């Protein structure tokens, strides 16, 4: 294998370079604020960095300072000649070299050359590919029931295995996911709480695990100080707009082509912030949540709710509401079905302590 080499190149600062660095800083700032999955500003940042690196690649060898440990540079993002704006966690050797270049009146630019001649050091923690998946059988049930059985089996396995194994909510009806998470989020005497990872069909894994057997949940809602009705996502069921107080999440932010786990994490972060805001004044809030079928959004929301309830018990109660329009649902309990602005919904099991 080819090996990596890295150096800091000192580029002469002129107006063009100053403008380029300013543009890079601006793009980086915007990229940091961008929604997960929105790569417009990331692409701009990377294009500008490439221009800077191309310019640095052509500098005289005398103005280059080789870096002895290229692997240590992996996380370095070095822009400009102002040490105060360099990242704090930069390796000491890189910082020293960069400072020396600045002292010569030049702008340091990190140049990584991954195709240098030599044998690449293989990863010290060599790992084999995971074994093929185990076969699974639902035991005769089919369709939606089988999907639910699969998810239930995954949760049970995650709870009982020596190490927590991931659960995969992809492709499962949103009401089934919600009810199953509700069932297993509830504490059970003698069963220890456990945080289990959540993984999506695309292989992505959420940064926030789901707390299971962790919450002393109750079956009935208690009176609240404030009741709000929210659609989980905007623009999904517009006929409902007149009936709800708002949408919990903006569809434009959430429904983007990106790994499922990123959507989950985004929803988690937004939900934690909004729940904290709702609970700020100490009042007890009830949310009626009219759900839609984006499983990453549903799971992200309920993970955030579970963590919020662990931190601030009894501050919020959530009544899930499931759209029931197209379903024949012969076996379902029709007594809890309600109509909102001519759209039929049924109540799920409340999340309340």
């Amino acid at each position, binding site marked *: *294998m*080819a090996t*990596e080499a*890295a150096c800091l190149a000192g580029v002469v600062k002129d107006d063009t370079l100053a403008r380029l660095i300013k543009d890079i800083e601006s793009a980086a700032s915007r*990229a*940091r604020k961008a929604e997960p999955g929105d*790569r417009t500003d*990331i*692409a701009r*940042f*990377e*294009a500008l*960095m*490439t221009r800077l690196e*191309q310019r640095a690649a*052509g500098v005289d060898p005398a103005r280059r300072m080789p870096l002895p440990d*290229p692997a240590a540079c*992996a*996380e*370095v*993002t*070095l822009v400009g000649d102002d040490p105060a704006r360099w990242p704090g966690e930069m390796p000491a050797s890189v910082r020293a070299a960069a400072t020396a270049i600045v002292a010569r009146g030049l702008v340091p630019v*990190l*140049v*990584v*050359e*991954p*195709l240098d*001649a030599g*044998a*690449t050091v*293989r*990863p010290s923690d*060599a*790992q*084999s*590919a*995971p074994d*093929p*998946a*185990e*076969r*699974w*059988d*639902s035991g005769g*049930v*089919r*369709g*939606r029931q089988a999907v639910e059985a*699969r998810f239930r089996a995954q949760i049970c396995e995650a709870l009982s295995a020596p190490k927590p194994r991931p659960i*995969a909510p*992809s*492709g499962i009806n949103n009401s089934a996911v919600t009810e199953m998470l509700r069932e297993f989020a509830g504490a059970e005497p003698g069963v220890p709480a456990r945080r289990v990872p959540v993984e999506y*069909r*695309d*292989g*992505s894994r959420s940064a926030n695990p789901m707390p299971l057997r962790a919450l002393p949940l109750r079956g009935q809602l208690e009176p609240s100080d404030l009741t709000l009705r929210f659609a989980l996502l905007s623009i999904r069921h517009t006929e409902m707009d007149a009936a709800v107080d708002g949408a919990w999440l903006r569809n434009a932010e959430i429904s983007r*082509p*990106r*790994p499922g786990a990123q959507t989950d994490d985004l929803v988690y972060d937004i939900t934690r912030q909004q729940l904290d805001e709702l609970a700020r004044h100490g009042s007890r809030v009830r949310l009626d949540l009219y759900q839609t079928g984006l499983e990453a959004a549903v799971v992200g929301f309920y993970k955030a709710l579970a963590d919020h309830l662990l931190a601030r018990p009894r501050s919020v109660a959530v009544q899930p509401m499931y759209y029931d329009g197209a379903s024949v649902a012969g076996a379902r309990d029709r007594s809890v079905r309600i109509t909102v602005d001519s759209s039929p919904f049924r109540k799920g099991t409340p999340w309340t302590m």
Partner: protein
Amino acid sequence: MMALTEANPVAQSLGRVYAISWPTEVARMLITPHANDSAMSVSDAYALLARFGVDLPRELLPLAVVDNGSIACAALADWGPARAGDVLRLHLADVDPQFQLRLLDVDPLAYVASINEELAARGEGLRRMLDEIGPAYKDTYLRAEKRPRDFVVRPVRIACQNVIVGLAAIAQDSAFDGLSVVAWQTCEVPHVAAHEGNRALAALTLCDAFRNGGTMEIRFDRDARVLANNRQRFYPGHPERRVPASLRRFGRTVGVPLGAEDPAAITPVEARDLFLAITPMPDQLSAHVRIAITTYGISPERICFTLLSQVWREIELDYLLATTARVASILAGGASWQQRGARQSESVVCRAAVMIGMLFRRLNSTDAAGAGHGEARVVEDRNNGVTWSIDDETGVVTFSGLPRGGTVPWTHGVTCEGTLTVRPFGPPPAPGVVDAVVVPADVAAPELPAGVALLRCPERLPDIDKGIEARLLSSRISR
């Protein structure tokens, strides 16, 4: 013909082929010693071969008609790479030597028996596909411009030059979290290499199973329903109710027994082996893939899916695997933009891989666009047979099999003598090591020693990066 003793397993197998009373449909394909109810006698077959100018080696015996352009021959003894008992496909027309005498099966009796099973189920399979599943899908999804969910029974049709070589109907089944197959059939046609229909259909099926996110188990015995012509159709699994004979036959030729653990299913373990066996990989790429599986922990399914869906093409992936330890990160969608050091390294290697890929396709292409008057432009299936090898330590790529004296693309009249060594980016590692350095269209030319050509890739750096970003996005949002 060679003399065979009774103890010889090939003789025993052939003896049973000739002794069994096959259904008429199969018997009419056989080439037997006395031609009773069969297509022809062995001596007639030799006469036919003589008319086509084929001098069959004495180790090969005509066994059956494959189609109207080829016959199956049984190897009576080890012969070249063929082992005794192998069934090989002899094309009567003049075909490229690499496609001649390809393996159809590993035993004469197994071959004929599998043809028998296949033909017995073909009528039912064709009826399902052509009269019910296909039209139902057209009405419900194609006409309505709707995208089906993964659990919908979806028809697959594979054709080569307007001739259908494979038909299947597949659906993700939550009852076992795998792929259910209610129709699967392929055929051999004169202009397509042996088992290519099976290989293509298997590749498509495995990619679908992978993308659906299940266990990769593929079952052939599960019920399915389709609404066709306002009538609910019920299918109790594949017509054969087990792994189809043609697919098992194909599995035998690539050394992957299918349905061995469960006759009605390709298990996740078998699916992995089949995926690796059918994904086209030159030897060096195959070796690199083995290292990636055992060292970087990349799953074989992900690598095969990446290659078959062409997120990264063969030479590109080979280059990545050969030259960077960051390949696991690249195949997972790339390092974070905030880790510029890692990202820069990955970008350079990816650009190199993309340019090498473009150069390879250009070198290998024989597109006759702009050729002389009267010559039709044919794009499909034309190449120069160029091969590549990558020096892991220097990132230098050697292309072999180029036309001697041919002009090197992306240069002004530089010619080569059959091989071309190229290094993407930068100066060559040492004088005389490479013939050329390739750089993007808008990158400043490096100082090159005498005798080293500069290849200007027609794409600019931003265009290359845009293409790379699309590939990384595909990797991020697929399994």
